[in-house]
């Protein structure tokens, strides 16, 4: 009786596990299919794109004509350079300035600490896009329209809020002994900050990845602040190219592939960091 019951429950658990895998695989397929479809067809001749969209490129159907059009008719290399510049400089500012501010808020008790913490947290929930009209006026006044600096400043301001919030929590966990030992040795507060920074390196990396993705993917601010040919980012460049070449399917698929590859590569490299950061950040709330 007992054994029969056990056999049944083992079987039931096994079926349950199979169903779990089946559902998850189904969703993985749904998540990956559109991207795979684009990659597959980007390397096919026009006729094959339409006659057999679900087939892999074969020797007969293989073609790079889409990529050739993209590279001859648009400036993707420049767009890449612009995107990388904006992302790298903005991330540098966000991480370094954010770490400094987070350190001040988490380490020192001073009048106005609570006010500053709240003030700097406003940007977590209120999207910076709301201020677009004034941002554009400001950039015009500063002569920064159609420069990468306009994007860098906006993204830095936008990224700082969440960064300071997360880093303060990590910095508050740095052991007292470490800091006190340095203070007893007469180290300046700047020196101590320099000692603490490497200790929270994993948190810095997480915050960097976190901030990077929305900057790379943004369309709104490149469209409004820096739409000129010299300052287009990959996403804006791709968006305009796709709009112009709507009926040239080879080029559209090639341009989509070119826009996806860097983010996908970054994601696969940093996914662990990102997910750990996401889970930690959420637990804190």
């Amino acid at each position, binding site marked *: 009786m007992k054994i029969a019951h056990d056999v049944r429950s083992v079987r039931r658990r096994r079926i349950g596990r199979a169903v779990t895998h089946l559902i998850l695989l189904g969703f993985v397929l749904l998540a990956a299919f559109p*991207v795979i479809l*684009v990659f597959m067809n980007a390397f096919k001749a026009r006729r094959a794109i339409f006659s057999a969209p679900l087939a892999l490129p074969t020797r007969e159907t293989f073609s790079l004509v889409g990529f050739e059009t993209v590279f001859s008719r648009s400036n993707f290399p420049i767009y890449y350079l612009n995107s990388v510049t904006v992302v790298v400089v903005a991330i540098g500012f966000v991480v370094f300035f954010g770490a400094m501010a987070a350190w*001040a808020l988490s380490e020192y008790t001073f009048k106005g600490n609570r006010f500053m913490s709240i003030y700097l947290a406003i940007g977590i929930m209120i999207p910076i896009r*709301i201020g677009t*009209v004034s941002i554009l006026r400001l950039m015009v006044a500063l002569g920064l329209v159609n420069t990468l600096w306009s994007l860098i*400043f906006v993204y830095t301001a936008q990224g700082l809020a969440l960064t300071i919030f997360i880093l303060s929590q990590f910095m508050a966990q740095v052991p007292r002994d470490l800091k006190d030992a340095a203070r007893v040795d007469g180290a300046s507060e700047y020196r101590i900050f320099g000692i603490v920074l490497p200790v929270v390196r994993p948190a810095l990396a997480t915050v960097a990845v976190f901030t990077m993705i929305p900057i*790379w993917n943004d369309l709104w601010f490149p469209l409004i602040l820096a739409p000129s040919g010299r300052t287009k980012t990959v996403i804006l460049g791709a968006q305009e190219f796709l709009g112009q070449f709507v009926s040239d399917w080879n080029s559209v698929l090639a341009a989509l592939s070119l826009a*996806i590859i860097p983010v996908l590569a970054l994601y696969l490299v940093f996914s662990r960091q990102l997910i750990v950061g996401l889970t930690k950040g959420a637990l804190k709330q």
Partner: protein
Amino acid sequence: MTVTGNRFRSYIAVFLLPATAIYTMFLIYPLLGSLGLSLQETVGQGGQTQFVGFANFRRLLTNENWAPGFWNALGNNVYFFVIHSLVQNPIGLLLASLLTAGKLRGQNSYRTALFMPTMLSVVIVGFIWQLILSPIWGVAEGFLGALGLENWFKPWLGLRESALTALSLISVWQFYGIPMMLFYTGLIGIPDELIESAYVDGASGWKIFWRLKFPLILPVLGIVTVLTFVGNFNAFDLIYTTQGTLAGPDFSTDILGTYFFRVFFGHQLQLGNPTMGATVATMMFLIILAGVLTYMFAWRRRVETYEM
């Protein structure tokens, strides 16, 4: 040894200065500036403005040239949010609970793959789905055909009655990863002993989920909802990419983000208007603020009492 005392310590100012300066100049100041501009009106050719009180708001909410567009965008935006909440949260919860059910092989690979769409640019996602749903390419039609349902196929993105739903679902496809990850975090945070003791008491997996796990992760639902709310009422890229500035067909996919863009920059049918643009942005600000405050006060308090 905490450094305390009331004397001014310059290093604190030095640490705070760069972040505060950039943040104030490029986020707080423009936010306040936009709110201020919504109370003004452009006069003359030079772009000077004069204070007009709440006249812009009155015009936006009641004038026959403005109000229909605004209410249409607001209504569509609410619909966009409702579809997200109804579809995205159950999918996120289902996937998170499957990922955390027992010791699952390949858990990390599943997680990585399932979160992937969230990393892609909205522009790219919009375009890919536009291709898939396109009657010219026929991929979606082919799939339905394979199931014997080819009659069901319609050019959903081009039809007034289905375009907004289709776009909402595309957006759900992209962003279900966020609720999934947050629910996942909540679920792995539940102590194992709690679950084991329930099993020992003979409770079924189903019962354990609804009676034990679900109440414990209920606070996550609040965070997810407020994040979705802010994201939805600030959305723009998807509609702009797939439907254009005019959010067609016939403005049926117009949401506040695209309406704001049109009012501010103008379009084929109308000149741009910065002060009315700022007025629309201020309405978006108030809506988002209302959502965030509702979460902070009402939801949090209710969940806290529920937990006790």
